[in-house]
């Protein structure tokens, strides 16, 4: 079994990928920018559901 096949047996997630990127590139100052943008992403995700009229009203 190759290294890749062993690695493929494990899982991965968005936040882990993001953390790995920040760690590898040592771009810690991206953290606040990303947090704020992810908060907007959360709002946008809600706005694509039936809660949209209430989310828009919150805006």
């Amino acid at each position, binding site marked *: 079994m*190759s*290294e*890749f*096949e*062993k*690695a*493929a047996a*494990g899982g*991965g997630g*968005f936040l*882990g*990928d*993001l953390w*790995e*990127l920040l760690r*590898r*590139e040592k*771009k810690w*100052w*991206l953290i*606040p*920018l*990303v947090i*704020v*943008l*992810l908060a*907007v*992403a959360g*709002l*946008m*995700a809600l*706005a*694509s*559901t*039936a*809660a*949209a*009229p*209430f*989310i*828009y*009203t919150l*805006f």
Partner: protein
Amino acid sequence: MTAILGLSAFFHDSAACLVVDGEIVAAVQEERFTRIKNDAAFPARSIAYCLETAGLTTKDLDYVAFYDKPLLKFERLLETYLSYAPAGLASFSSAMPPWLTTKLFLRRVIRGELGSALHAPIVFLDHHESHAASAFFPSPFADAAIVTVDGVGEWSTTTVGAGHGRTIALTEEIRFPHSLGLLYSAFTYYCGFAVNSGEYKLMGLAPYGVPRYVDTILQHLIDLKPDGSFWMDQAYFQYAAGLRMTNDRFHALFGGPPRSPEAPLEQRHMDLAASIQKVTEEALLRIGRHAHAVTGQRNLVMAGGVALNCVANGRLLREGPFERIWIQPAAGDAGGALGAALHVWHQLLEHPRRETGEDRQQGSYLGPAYTLDDIRATLDARGAVYERLTDEPALLDRVAGHLDDGQIVGWFQGRAEFGPRALGARSILADPRSVDTQAQLNLKIKFREGFRPFAPSVLREHVSEWFQTRPGEESPYMLMVAPVAESRRVALSDEQARTMREDPDLIRRVNVPRSVVPAVTHVDYSARIQTIDERHGRLQRLMQRFFARTGCPIVVNTSFNLSWEPIVLTPAEAYHTFMHSEMDLLVLEDYLVLKANQPGAAAIVRGRPPVTARPATGWRWHWRQLTASEGSAIEPVGGHRRGPDDSNRSIRQFSGIGAALLIVLAAWRAWDAGVTSGVVRTGVTGLVLGLLGLLAPAVVRPLYRLALAVTAPVGAVVSRLILAAIYYVIFTPVAVGFRLVSRDELRRQRPVASETHWRRTRGPRAARDYLRQS
């Protein structure tokens, strides 16, 4: 059995490719199914076709390989805005929504699209690694230098490396925003053609011009080193953080604003096209020499959008250091799907390549085929009059005879091509010797004002007799340009020479016969050749018949489509296109359809369907360019998540949330001010809303739609304001801080006394990194 599905999606040219035990089973671009040119949507239909071809379902897949790393691309976007803020808000505001809803979460999106039966891990490759894999692994070479050149992937825009056996390694790169592809696209935009699809037109326009802007380009726009590395002065461009490719400084340098598409082409535009083409050729030649020097390889493989510049490819082959060059036919982003899948098989799963000396692209005939029953049913359903000729020699003799008579043939055979070129499976064929062929094809078949000649398919054993190539030279995928042989050219009269030099009408210029095969000879005697051999099957046998009959081993081969459509895929689309153009004959496998025999053929309106919307001209065209690019001049369409629908489920959710809010409000007011009639009304309204949503959602639907209609515009405005606030309050101070400490991540400042602009790549990735989006 190991099945690997390769995907490219969400930017442009979505595609899917299936590799089973190392063999390319199927590959197709989504546009062929959806009929939307360069479609960027998730390639659901392409995936379905690939799986069906192999008799598999998603649960049988072992790996899904995506062609780039979205988080790295997102990091590049953030760095770009930090380099330009406070400028760049318009680009930021329109780029962020698709990223924040879809592109950042591609693992989840892909799993969602492929369904719960999918258990395979999703692998993410570097964009240029996918290109490199698509170039090297299917190539006929055991070892080769690799060059990839395109607009941009994550950060890389150009890479150099080598492939050995089952591995590839990219060792040097040029990074965004310095990009040969984007430089070419900037001139494409400036000359009035569409970015990402009009580059061919600019290349075709170049032979009409004089390259008098070369020095200006090299002096102001690009610092091109002898080793092919380059740096571009971003003071002239706006693509990095803007909605246009070029800016006012660029326009001032070249004598005016960008040309609108409907404006006439002036000599200046032709000279600009000639100039940027020459600079591109020079850069590719130098990159090729550098790749040869650092790798010591005799052969070269290439991919990336710039590798579709067949004029530059031809020069690289003739003037460069390599003995042979192989270019991935789907060199653009669609080919990334194929590269990603092969990369997993060879490099990550460590399976060796089978070296046969032949390429593994299978003529690029990797798309859908249709049975004789399918074709007959299609023709019968349309009341078509047809013959079936089961005797192939008889069929080919008939078709060769029609071609010899100057007739134009729709040619539909076998599996569809993967890649932008028609290679003999979905082609329109014609006699290249006729002086009328070119105008007829342009005006009556393609319905365009074509200033470009058509491409020749030539029997490989005759190629050097007709074109300036080595004997038996291969160009099976129509990716090399070569000059027409001197012996095949014809002398021009004084008047013809004057027309060629001075006539402002390019159509009249290109219609001057310059060789004995005028339909395929450009004004500079160049031709974009496809050599035909055994892999091209029935097309080769047809051309042998045509040659035996006429002594001409060449036919015109142009894509089977009307100019505003993708290439046809199905027999029904082929028949429709045949009937809506002036083609004389349609050959669908064994079936032969003559236009003259078709009932009602004369009554069918040919040409472009009526446009109901007002065509975009002037500022509207520019606006369309901006809005079509979704966020930046180089970040085209992207999959926005769909908005809320008005299904019963959504309405129940809406009613439930509304009811809960009203009841909580009533309870809070009751606690605060006691039970009043208002409190009762609020509570009852909540209850009624909840019950109606549950029991009779149709009653609530108008209210739901009204609420969406009223609040959505407010949300659209406010979300823009929120993004603007983020940009000015958070990004801009960070950006200003970086500038104060002279941080220049994009290398916008001209490097001082640098001998090279090549940068070493990071080197091989750890195996687990391929499972990350970053």
